[in-house]
């Protein structure tokens, strides 16, 4: 049994290694030194305390978006709208912090609450459309993403614009989420993110409501027959997952980004989906996978800068890592592979 679990970890690890080897070959073909490039990657991610802190900073929005997906999928809802919900949260938090005309920790709290509400609201809309009109949440959430992105464009070019570039004013200093260590960019937002991860895990696996939510996700008919309100659990999943993303947006804008600019938050939603699925919808694993995504992102920036390969090579390597890692763990579930391993270990244990 132990060995089987070991294989479940080992195989994805090997596949990630393989992805890197292919990446190295590409880098070699580009005329750069692959060993050095890997060196840059690690240096970029872990080389200095600042860099280490950057990976943590980078992981925060990813954790929230991953948890957003994780929570919804656990209830059988394919929420692809993480990005929109994240942005709505960010916009609401920013609007509160800018428009309230005061600054201070209480404004921060207010702004975060606003972010949660806005994200939850943006999740509620597709939820209502699903339960009221039966609309597939995959399309509606994609549409709502576009609307949110465009709405953000409106906010930073017109509504809350400040100055000559299309961007909003920055969050006032006292409203910013404070840093944990004065000279590192890590804020208490990361603590919130981890706490949300733990809370989601606790809720899903250690409470009756979470149990019922998962049951609805696995088998709505059986859940209905056994007295769970399928509709309200689904709505709840929509709202809570939106709220998690919204909280992420608020924490990011109040702690790291401070203002809205063009392209903000782009891709976070889909990263979240990938992260949650790679983590096999486990909230704690989601936090960890999100951190590895961030490491890859931060490290690869340095690798790109240091070795001079085009950014697209880095993207290719990142995609390869996802492709290989997930394929590796998927492989472990194949019937033939299962039989193979059980025979392998069966024989060894007998010996």
């Amino acid at each position, binding site marked *: 049994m132990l060995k089987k679990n070991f294989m479940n970890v080992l195989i994805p690890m090997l596949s990630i290694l393989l992805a890197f080897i292919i990446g190295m070959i590409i880098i070699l073909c580009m005329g750069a030194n692959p060993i050095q490039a890997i060196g840059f990657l690690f240096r970029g991610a872990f080389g200095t305390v600042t860099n280490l802190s950057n990976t943590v900073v980078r992981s925060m929005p990813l954790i929230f978006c991953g948890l957003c997906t994780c929570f919804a999928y656990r209830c059988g809802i394919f929420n692809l709208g993480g990005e929109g919900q994240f942005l709505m949260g960010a916009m609401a938090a920013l609007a509160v912090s800018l428009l309230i005309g005061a600054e201070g920790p209480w404004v921060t709290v207010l702004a975060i609450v606003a972010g949660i509400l806005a994200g939850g609201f943006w999740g509620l809309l597709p939820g209502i459309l699903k339960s009221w009109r039966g609309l597939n949440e995959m399309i509606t959430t994609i549409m709502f993403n576009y609307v949110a992105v465009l709405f953000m464009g409106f906010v930073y070019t017109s509504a809350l614009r400040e100055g000559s570039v299309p961007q909003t004013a920055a969050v006032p200093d006292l409203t910013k989420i404070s840093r944990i260590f004065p000279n590192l960019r890590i804020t208490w937002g990361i603590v919130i993110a981890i706490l949300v991860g733990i809370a989601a895990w606790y809720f899903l696996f250690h409470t009756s409501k979470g149990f019922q939510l998962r049951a609805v996700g696995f*088998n709505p008919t*059986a859940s209905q*027959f*056994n007295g769970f309100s399928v509709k309200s659990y689904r709505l709840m999943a929509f709202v809570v997952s939106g709220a998690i993303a919204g909280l992420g947006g608020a924490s990011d804008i109040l702690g790291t980004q401070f203002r809205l600019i063009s392209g903000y938050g782009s891709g976070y939603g889909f990263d979240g989906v990938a992260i949650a699925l790679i983590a096999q919808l486990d909230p704690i694993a989601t936090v960890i996978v999100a951190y590895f995504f961030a490491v890859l992102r931060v490290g690869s920036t340095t690798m790109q800068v240091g070795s001079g390969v085009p950014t697209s090579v880095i993207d290719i390597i990142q995609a390869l890592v996802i492709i290989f890692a997930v394929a590796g763990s998927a492989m472990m579930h194949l019937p033939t592979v299962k*039989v193979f391993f059980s025979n392998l270990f069966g024989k060894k244990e007998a010996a």
Partner: protein
Amino acid sequence: MEELLRMEGISKQFGEFFANRNVCFEVRAGEVHTLLGENGAGKSTLMNVLVGLYQPTSGSIFLHGKKVKIDSPAHAVKLGIGMVHQHFMLVEAMTVFENIILGDRRSKKPFIDVKERKKEILELSWKYGLNVELDEKITNIAVGAQQRVEILKALYRGAELLILDEPTAALTDVEVEGLYSIIEKLKAEGKSIVFISHKMREVLHVSDRITILRAGEAICTLDADKTTSQELANLMIGRELSEPIYSKVTQPGDPVIEFINVSYKKSFKHGGLSEVSLRVAKGEILGIAGVDGNGQSQLAQIAAGVIVNESGEVKLKGKKPSTFAPRGFIDERVSLIPEDRNLMGLVGDMSIEDNLVFKSTEDVRFSNFHGWLLKKNAIRQYSEELRDKYDIRCQSVAQETRNLSGGNQQKVILARELEAEPDLLIAVHPTRGLDIGATRYVRDSMIEARDKGCGVLLISADFDEVLQLSDRIIVLFEGQIMGEYSGKNPPIQEISLAMAGK
């Protein structure tokens, strides 16, 4: 008779588990050969190996004495092997006609020649007396009709060796008679049949030979006319099973549920109820007899609060239910053994223990703070107790229910529903597809519940079961009640006629 098929030393492994181990099995031309065994003995697995759906871990197959490697169902079709699967292989979104012609290779024409094909199929269905509505979607036809479609599908393909995996589980007695005559006709045409069923009567009636599987291994092969059901049961489960005689109750207590002129989708013959009035009292079993698809599902679902009646009144323990939803009914101690265990009863991706405490996670026994902290240890302990009490055979209670055999899945539901100490137990086809051991267990449990004062609403397409267990019998036909009969010495002839709408 000449040998048609021989399977030699077949083993099939799933993960660590062997569903078949070194099985040898042989079929002669023109015979009906029955596979008999408990749930999970590996009958279906063996046949799935034969039709190429599963690849055996080891062993070989010979057809007409020649070794063949059947690597896909397509190949099996080509070799003249057809199978009616235990779980319907019907595409619900398509019509009966489309389901029958699926994968058809009769002509090379790219387009479907609807007229010609329909004519052929109708001729076939007329020949074998299998009545089907070709243009109806599968979702809109009753289970019995679906079973007929499955059989027709196999016949349409014209197999030399036809495997029937529990084809009678969803058929009425009349339809079973029809199936017997189909089997006779096929035999007369020189075709061979592998028959799988848990009903001894049927097995002894149709078979020429019987092979018994136990825990994945073939125990022996017997000639049908030289054996008895006692001997078969003994070989199968290792002990004798006598036909039980259950006592009947004539003086029931207060009513637990009453239907007063209840209607639901009146115009639907196969999914509606019209002006149904009935009553189940404490300590009695009310049996609903009738061909499947005459409103039984709807009756059960209204009685469990899943769907709401359109007119009339439903009274629980003498009053209107406060919330007409499953939750409200569960709180009034109504338990349900649903007709489709995997769809409505269990969450296959969750463990046995989760399914056992499914409805009661907020109970103080299983959680603190009104459900905000589950007591995992208490749940584990409780589940293990139930596992032992209800004889649920599994590797561990943490195992997913999806991988259990049908009998054990049913036991999980039974355990959950009976442990809730219901005042009303609604049991829909509670023993469908179960082997004799499991069937006996389920029936005994229902009687025991009744004797403890629970009212039981038994809905079953198995007429024998209704007769055996019920204290009163009601016949349902096209959503209407055709008559009510005492369970003690019931007029069998009269009831059969009522079931046919006469």
